[in-house]
């Protein structure tokens, strides 16, 4: 029996399963109500019109509210506790930004509205562009890319078009570190490039010798994040850029790790030609359970005319849309994730010079401190000072006790902390990647370390069944094979499967 008022799925009372909204549906119930039609009825004659009603759940508003509210209690969140997820920058998302993003014409303007009606929105994008280019050391930006990966693709298409226009279309290789995030090679491929991997040296940096070997006249460019995905600052970054530039390639900055260096140094000064920023990381916009983000792309001035258009320009006191002359074309239906961009601007305004100048420093301080205390428990992957995040490894524990990074992550869930990022970067065995961000207190960092020590002790115990972790959560480890094999991706699929089998 399923009923909307039964709260047994609440973790508060033990956390059974919550039925789907479809299981709570009963014919004839409804939450919605509309005004009565206030115009005369005419006959609708069109072959595309259906004669029956669409298939949708039928629930009362109270059942609807209870269902989604109960579900909300079945998730971790930045508002609930610490997510030390490396590469994700799970910092506090200021509630004040929600307020601004809710202001009427920010939230409710149609994207086709002409610029004369939307001067405020254009100014938002313009102000944000100024902050972003100052922070990254670039000259111009587009806000169309809705996420980092889209920013990468945008940047790569700019490289491609730039090379084409300069008769360098034989340049087909994009070099990507073996430690790079998966989106880098995937984006390069989507942009029509070949992906060439450069290796990482024993210190955890781009292997310069290898790079020199790989660079040739087919080299279109290099994608890099600095600090790199190991959390280490590429000290030879200027040389690296030079190598690529000498080969007439362009250098692309994956901004996922920008939080480490805001106010400290700038990609533009390191030789990068194109930079994307993940506003949902560095600039504190909420992750939304997986999205939306915003991945604006900033370029040096020689690339401005390749940006997806239109971009905002200021003309006396008027903000105008301008389409760059050699634009690669749009990468989003309208202006990208405008409300996310707005939140980022709010964050920057609240930080101001005082906060932005020290942002990277505090992010690094927290990570360096955490790495210092955690390195007393499990070893670091690289013996170098970390920036805003660091990678530890449990490869020894795997050898000695079969304890994998995966197991450590699961056990941590039980103790009130989200797992760190695991198995990334791929080049580190049994990697645990920690990124505390600057918004956690030192107490929380200490607590995480103590807790990590406790669970590692616990997992090494005699009778421990690693698979039984997590133990405290409403569900344990899912069987991942069933959905992959049987495509139980739709309500009814699993039940059907049970009947068949």
């Amino acid at each position, binding site marked *: 029996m399923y009923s909307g008022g039964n709260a047994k799925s609440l973790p508060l009372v033990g956390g059974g399963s919550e039925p789907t909204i479809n299981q709570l549906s009963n014919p004839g119930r409804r939450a919605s109500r509309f005004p009565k039609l206030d115009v005369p009825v005419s006959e609708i004659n069109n072959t595309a019109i259906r004669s029956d009603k669409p298939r949708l759940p039928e629930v009362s508003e109270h059942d609807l509210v209870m269902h989604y509210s109960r579900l909300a209690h079945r998730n971790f969140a930045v508002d609930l506790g610490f997510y030390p997820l490396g590469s994700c920058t799970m910092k506090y998302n200021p509630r004040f930004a929600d307020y601004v993003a809710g202001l009427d014409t920010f939230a409710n303007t149609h994207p086709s509205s002409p610029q004369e009606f939307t001067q*405020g929105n254009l100014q938002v994008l313009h102000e944000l562009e100024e902050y972003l280019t100052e922070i990254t050391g670039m000259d111009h930006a587009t806000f169309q890319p809705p996420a980092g990966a889209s920013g990468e693709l945008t940047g790569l298409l700019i490289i491609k078009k730039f090379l084409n226009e300069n008769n360098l279309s034989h340049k087909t290789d994009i070099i990507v570190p073996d430690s790079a995030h998966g989106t880098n090679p995937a984006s390069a491929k989507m942009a029509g490039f070949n992906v060439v991997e450069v290796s990482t040296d024993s210190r955890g940096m781009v292997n310069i010798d290898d790079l020199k070997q790989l660079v040739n006249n087919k080299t279109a460019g290099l994608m890099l994040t600095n600090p790199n995905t190991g959390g280490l600052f590429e000290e030879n970054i*200027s040389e690296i850029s030079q190598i690529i530039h000498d080969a007439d390639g362009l250098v692309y900055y994956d901004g996922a790790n920008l939080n480490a260096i805001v106010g400290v140094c700038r990609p533009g000064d390191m030789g990068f030609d194109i930079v994307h920023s993940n506003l949902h990381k560095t600039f504190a916009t909420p992750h939304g359970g997986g999205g939306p983000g915003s991945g604006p792309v900033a370029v040096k001035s020689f690339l401005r005319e390749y940006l997806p258009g239109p971009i905002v320009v200021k003309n006396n006191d008027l903000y105008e849309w301008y389409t760059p002359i050699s634009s690669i074309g749009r990468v989003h239906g309208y202006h990208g994730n405008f409300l*996310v961009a707005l939140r980022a601007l709010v964050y920057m305004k609240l930080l101001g010079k005082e906060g932005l100048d020290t942002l990277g420093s505090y992010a690094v301080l927290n990570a360096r401190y955490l790495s210092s205390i955690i390195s007393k428990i499990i070893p670091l992957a690289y013996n170098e000072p970390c920036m805003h995040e660091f990678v530890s490894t449990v490869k020894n524990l795997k050898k000695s006790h079969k304890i994998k990074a995966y197991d450590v992550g699961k056990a941590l869930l039980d103790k009130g902390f989200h797992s760190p990022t695991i198995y990334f970067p791929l080049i580190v065995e049994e990697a645990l990647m920690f990124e505390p961000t600057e918004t956690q207190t030192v107490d929380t960092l200490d607590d995480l370390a103590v807790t990590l020590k406790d669970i590692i002790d616990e997992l090494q115990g005699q009778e421990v069944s690693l698979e039984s972790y997590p133990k405290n959560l409403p569900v344990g480890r899912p069987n991942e094979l069933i959905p992959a094999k049987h495509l139980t991706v739709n309500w009814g699929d699993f039940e059907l499967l049970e009947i068949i089998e």
Partner: protein
Amino acid sequence: MFVPHSEIDLKKMFEELSISSLSDLFTHIPETLKLNEGLSVDPYLSELEAISHFKNLESKNTQDLICFAGGGHYDVYLPHTVKTLTMRPEFMTSYTPYQAEISQCILQVLFEYQSLICDLTDMELANASLYDGATSVAEAISVAINKTKRDNIILSSGFNPNTKEVVNTLVDKNKFNLKYIDLVNYLFPENYQFTDDDAAFVISLPHFEGTAQDLTSIVSNAKDKGVITICYVDPSMLGVLKSPGSMGFDIVVAEGQSMGSSLSFGGPTVGWFATKKDLARLVPGRIIGESRDSKNRKTYVMTLRAREQDIRREKASSNICTNQTLNAIGSTIHLSWLGPQGLYEIGYQAIQKASYMKNQLEIHNIEVLNSSTSLREFLIKTSSPASNVISKMGAHGFLAGIEYDKNSMLVAVTEKRTKVEIDNYVKIFKEVDHV
């Protein structure tokens, strides 16, 4: 700001690290790269000051325009209930549900989202969101190319020009041909001949111009040639339109804004993507599956992960990582709030009000270019340049529509518009549109 450390905290941390200042953290960074003076940006604003700043910015947008613009984004009523449920902090501030055990909420809601989309469109498998409608079209084309290994893409020209531009950007024109087929009398030619070289057939339902037709036989012709058929549908019309699945389409994509997202100046919204299970392994983005844990408890989990960039890298079906989950949650809750009757009402009332409006326009000698075959959206002819009309209508409190070409504009009516608003629109239009 938002850094919690007190002097005491800093002292403790500095001691652990044997440093005496923040700058000591960066001795390994080349001096030449360091910002010595810091950034040249304004001092911080307190919240009180920021309120003034942003209210002032917001006031520079024209206020209270009554929206008759559409083209993919619609001024559909978004209930406070749906908005506030979607904005619950647990939805808003959680991460991608990689750790399934602690993410059953996001996973279940996305599973419901996928199922709802499938139910509505008559498809078998939906993903957990793409960026928006326009990029979804490009992703769908990419699936068709990968499936058929063919080079021609046949597209209806009845698309929002922005969508076409996005497709043009994202599809590699060195390798593939984008062939746009003109509408005839605002409808796609029933007898269009597909060939064995065609990878995909892509069409919008309704057409960008607001007209609609049953596409069953066209789809069937395309499929006869092994073409992957892709329908870009207006979700807010799915209560009254035949479903794409029932017309035989292989892939359905949509701009999901009207279901659960405010207009937002175009973003964030959500791209819907649904298809048949036989294309499962080519699908871009995340997919949630239902499973069980070892105690046989229902457990949702991300599945078919071997398509994704973090595992497959350059061989992935797409580069998408961060998607539009929160907006997909919005769609889920909005659709559940609407139910069959509500979604029907949105479509039905929009069409009825558009009918009334077309009628009134014609009574006032304003020409509607596609009156009989259009539904809730249609083209009207302007005497003066359309952009001037839109500009003048703005001064009277209307966002009158979207410029279609120099002397015509696309007007959309939603269930929110009232008879009074329509009557005023027609009256003022008559006043402002003269040569």
